[in-house]
């Protein structure tokens, strides 16, 4: 039986080639667990969720918190994205928001995660992202839902680059776009 397949799997080789010079590191981080969490941040359920996650839900727009292997990114005033390692069990989270107190929707396969890192990462993204990606305003601990090229993404700045979460059906387009945008930066 065939293996399961991630949306940008076909780009693995090209990502590797593009990463060879050290100017840029491109890779897909496939099969991460992603959960869309909706809950009133002022509710007891939110506290329970925080308890399960081991970190309070970030309430400042455009921020993300890390808790061990988890990243919790603000998506909206009552909406978060939990990014966890593959296979993360979220029954406790579901329970925390049960009985109409909120929702947890598994969106792990809805988006895939691309790593854009290295010294030229910011320059590459600047070809298609209108946000100010300067580390003084968009460094680790921030997050943003925005547009990259002609598709919507969630951006999570890291110490050395960015995680770019993209809808699976757009992943091939965005991968091709990133490789194209990287052209000059790899010369």
């Amino acid at each position, binding site marked *: 039986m065939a293996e399961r397949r991630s949306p940008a799997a076909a780009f693995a080789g090209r990502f590797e080639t593009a990463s060879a010079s050290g100017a840029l590191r491109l890779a897909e981080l496939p099969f991460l667990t992603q959960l869309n969490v909706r809950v009133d941040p002022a509710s007891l359920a939110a506290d329970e969720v925080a308890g399960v996650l081991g970190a309070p839900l970030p309430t400042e*727009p*455009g921020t993300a918190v890390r808790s061990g292997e988890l990243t919790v990114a603000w*998506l*909206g*005033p009552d*909406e978060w994205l939990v990014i966890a390692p593959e296979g993360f069990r979220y029954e406790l989270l579901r329970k925390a928001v049960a009985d109409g107190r909120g929702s947890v929707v598994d969106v792990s396969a809805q988006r895939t995660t691309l790593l854009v890192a290295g010294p030229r990462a910011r320059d590459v993204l600047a070809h298609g992202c*209108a*946000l100010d990606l300067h580390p003084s305003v968009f460094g680790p601990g921030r997050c*943003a*839902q*925005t*547009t990259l090229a002609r598709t*919507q993404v969630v951006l999570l700045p890291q110490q050395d680059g960015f995680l770019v979460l993209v809808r699976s059906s757009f992943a091939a387009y965005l991968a091709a776009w990133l490789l194209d945008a990287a052209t000059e930066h790899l010369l």
Partner: protein
Amino acid sequence: MLLIPCPWCGPREEAEFHYGGQAHVAYPDDPSALSDEEWARYLFFRDNPKGRFAERWSHSAGCRRWFNAVRDTATNEIHAVYRVGEARPVTS
């Protein structure tokens, strides 16, 4: 490209937003009680001032939240943004 201050996410490019037309046009409580004229007004008639205009935007490529803005349609200057359900602020 306007820079629209999303009440949640802060200033973002106009292209991230979806325009929603005039704000504060409530869906009628009981449409069946309306005359055809009244229903037509709800369906099709919206203010179109040259000047300050309370309008709806959705930060569709960002936090997906609808909000209201007071924008001057003669200059495109945005004088205020406010959340759905809040009263239109006085912007002089």
